[in-house]
């Protein structure tokens, strides 16, 4: 769910989690389950496996809650770090199983494929989530301007908003996104 100050909200969640507050885990799940699951799904392309990974990520987050330091980074960055590891473990295990079964190891391994995919995927999913969290009509204004290359006048006409409002959504939305994403590169684990 969107919040005006996602970074401090994220810090509160991590602080709560660190103290063993189970509601903080539930809140983290509500906020980031879609990010974790979507990253996993993009990589393993199987919804059962992606759900297993999602489950492992949040259970792992709960078990390693003592290592969290809200001052060091964002909840999203931390969870994405855990997700990356969980996906890598999963893929490695799958590759090993496949090798054992077929007793061949020709061609590029899934592992290499997954690692190459990973950074771009997490980046896209995190930005998509941050964009969605801007709320409407701001998110649509940004999408139409940046992805669909509509002029500001076209967007104003299409959404029935004054031109000045469109521009103000774009400026503020862009700065909001920058602030949200800033913390994400840093993992909050100690």
């Amino acid at each position, binding site marked *: 769910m969107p919040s005006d100050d996602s970074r401090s909200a994220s810090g509160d969640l991590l602080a709560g989690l660190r103290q063993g507050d189970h509601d903080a885990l539930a809140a983290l799940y509500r906020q980031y389950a879609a990010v974790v699951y979507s990253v996993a799904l993009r990589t393993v*392309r199987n919804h059962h496996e992606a759900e297993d990974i999602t489950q492992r990520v949040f259970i792992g987050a709960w078990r390693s809650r003592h290592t969290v330091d809200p001052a060091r980074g964002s909840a999203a960055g931390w969870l994405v770090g855990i997700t990356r590891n969980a996906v890598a473990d999963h893929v490695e295990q799958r590759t090993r199983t496949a090798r054992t079964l077929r007793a061949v190891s020709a061609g590029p391994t899934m592992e290499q494929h997954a690692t190459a995919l990973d950074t771009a995927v997490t980046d896209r999913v995190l930005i998509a989530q941050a964009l969605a969290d801007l709320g*409407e009509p701001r998110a649509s204004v940004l999408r139409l301007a940046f*992805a669909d290359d509509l002029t500001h006048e076209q967007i104003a006409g299409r959404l029935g908003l004054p031109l000045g409002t469109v521009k103000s959504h774009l400026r503020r939305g862009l700065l909001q996104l920058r602030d949200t994403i800033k913390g994400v590169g840093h993992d909050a684990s100690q």
Partner: protein
Amino acid sequence: MHPSDDVLAGVAIGDDTDEAVAAHLRTCNRCGATLDELRELIARVADAAAEQLHQPSDAVWSRIADETGEGGATEQGLQKGRRDEPDQSGASDAPLEAAGPTLEPAPPRFGRTWLWGAVAAGVAVGVLTATVVPQFTRPQEVVAKASLSTLDTGQTQGRATVTGQGTALDLNLQVQPQTAGTGFLEVWLINTDLKRMVSVGVLPNGSNAQEFPITSTLLEQGYVIVDISREPFDDRPQHSGDSLLRGTLS
């Protein structure tokens, strides 16, 4: 003096730039770097905008709550008592790119021209997601629920829950405040035949939660698509075609 971030953001989005600002930008490395960062972010947004976010099924949270203990959350997580539903996230073992928009539950044959096509003055119709947001605090008995998504971008912006027992039920909406513009926000239940609909009431402008009385008969007859529309003050009681949020109760 350095221009504010707001001014730099204006430059980044291609607004007309004040000559003094332009002159400053030619010489100031710091502001140049901020501008580069914002422009790069625009490119990243362009790249990410089409990325679909998917919700895992409710069972995932139930298992997490089980594994991590703490009775309260576990009970609430499981309390919904819903059976596993078919995956509605568009995800499957098939490559994700192949998962096209789905309109559920009725076959997409009826004239979407006015119902969907006219939406938001031509914004492309996106995936109608009916994924269910996990609920953790829900004391009443939940009969049905839906997540409500924008039609243009498929973004979840609220949820609808039907609670109660017997024939008198309540439709509870929790939504991000929607803008009614110069009109007002009306809540509808649309039939799965996509032809019949009933108005259940008006959502106050800027409101994020509202309850509407409905009957179980409506749901039994197939009026299960919750729709919030923007209506002009035009004395025409029918749906304007300008739907903001929608979701299917299940």
